[in-house]
């Protein structure tokens, strides 16, 4: 399969701190790719560079055959990259349905067709029955799903998920994993996720990149990554082996 997203030597510096240090990887179309690493490794910064919230200081980002590094966030989203935020940010005063309609309107002119599409997405994410609630009134797991729903409604080719499992109970994590798998299988959606919950990473990812101090220290199949001594040393710890 060809690469939908490719990064070559992408860097970002905050004054003296190198947050992302010449990172390069490829996400193949239809794949699920995970970025893991300890806190402060530069994972969210990497996402912000891809999604256009921050311009990279160096390197190239190619999405669907075109360079996107340095483009503003809205243009990148319109090209087909959707994202969620680590600290969830639904539009608080809007209803669940309206949150998702905003996403659905990106590539739809009419509110009616956007609403129909939003309902479809809400059903898929088990939020349909809560569609009339204010987003601010939802529980954390629901807000996380709402973020995914809003992003998904804009028909992305690539979905960036920033720790959507964090704070979820194991059963909720399993449900989210099932939903993402289903999406990936049925719609061919490519997913790039940052995740600490290894249970989810192992269940989902076909490839993993490990960041440490901004640099990629390992990349490969999940089974190889968990046996990689450098990864165990810096992040997973020895107990991950057992």
């Amino acid at each position: 399969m060809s690469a939908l997203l490719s990064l070559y030597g992408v860097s970002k510096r905050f004054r003296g701190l190198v947050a992302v240090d010449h990172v390069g990887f490829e996400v193949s179309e239809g794949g699920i790719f995970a970025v893991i690493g300890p806190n402060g490794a530069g994972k969210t910064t990497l996402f912000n560079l891809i999604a256009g919230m921050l311009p990279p200081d160096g390197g190239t980002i190619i999405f669907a055959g075109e360079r996107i590094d340095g483009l503003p966030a809205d243009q990148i989203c319109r090209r087909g990259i959707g994202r969620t935020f680590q600290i969830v940010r639904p539009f608080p005063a809007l209803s669940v349905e309206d949150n998702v309609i905003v996403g659905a309107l990106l590539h739809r002119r009419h509110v009616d067709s956007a609403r129909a599409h939003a309902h479809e997405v809400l059903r898929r994410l088990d939020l349909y029955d809560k569609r009339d609630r204010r987003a601010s009134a939802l529980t954390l797991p629901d807000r996380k799903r709402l973020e995914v729903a809003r992003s998904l409604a804009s028909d992305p080719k690539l979905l960036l998920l920033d720790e959507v499992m964090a704070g979820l109970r194991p059963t909720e994590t399993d449900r989210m994993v099932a939903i993402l798998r289903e999406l990936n299988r049925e719609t061919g959606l490519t997913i790039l996720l940052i995740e600490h919950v290894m249970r989810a990473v192992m269940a989902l990812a076909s490839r993993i990149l490990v960041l440490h101090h901004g640099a990629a220290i390992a990349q490969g199949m999940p089974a190889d990554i968990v046996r990689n001594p450098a990864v165990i040393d810096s992040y997973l710890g020895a107990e991950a082996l057992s």
Partner: protein
Amino acid sequence: MIVRLIAGVPGRGLALLGALLAALTAAPLFASDYLLTVLILILYFAYIGQAWNIMMGFAGQLSLGHTLYVGLGAYTAAALFVHFGIGPWIGLAAAVPAAALIGAFIGFLAFRFRVAGVYFAILTIAFAEFARLGFDHLSWTGGSGGLFLPVSQFTHNDLWRLRGHPVMFYYILLAATALAFLICRALLQSRVGYFWRAIREDEEVARSTGIDTFHYKMIAVVISAAMTSFAGVMYAFYYNNLFPEQVFHILRSIEIILGPIVGGVGTLFGPILGAFVLTGLAETLTAALAALGIDLPGAKQVFYGICLLLVVTALPEGIWPWLSRRIGLAEKSQ
């Protein structure tokens, strides 16, 4: 068309709106001259409040200098009338684009250079002040001495030239307020309205949801400025005199935003309700004080202050969201 217009409105809401419209339509038959001028003032603020609400309530952009657009509309139409005898309705064709253009200019400056929040509000004040000082020295519009429209004894209502009895202005403003309500509702339920509310809630997230926030904020400013300038034209032809010190004064801008804040920012009916509550009660107070023979200059301002204080502490979302829940007519999402 009509089906679309009333789609999603609960029956009781329609009945209430209809009753209100009928009462307001019939009001001049019963109202005294004084009451009529109060009603004109209420409708005037209800109309402008709705226009301001598009920018602040829908798109989240706080304008504290909205009287700029009132003044631009007023001065453009009045000057064309005084100097060239061009009637107000044709004057509108110059006044509205002029206000929209200035609105676009301010919006462009602010949004292009990421001036947001409080700083944007200050910028809007600054432009209203520029206009006040500028018009003070613009001799073509009479400078600080004022611009006066010729007034003659009304023999009949000349709708085309807007010369006539206050009743004529009353009906024009009533129609404008009703039309603005429909426009606001259509906008809020459209694609633009969804994007505005997304921007209002969280601009950064809106942008990463693919919304060209610059573009949609510009639309909000231009529509709001254009609608506001219409009220300015009516102002000019109703009062027949314009002074920069009055028209462009920051107090006028504050008066504009009090109604929507008291009624409910971002709601459809809030600005209208707010105008009725504030202007209605303030005039009642003035009349009551006058009847009691008490002369208290500034009583109205103090009253506005008290109202604002009460609403902000007891009902921070405004009266309408609370009231609409009480009577079971809550707007689905505000």
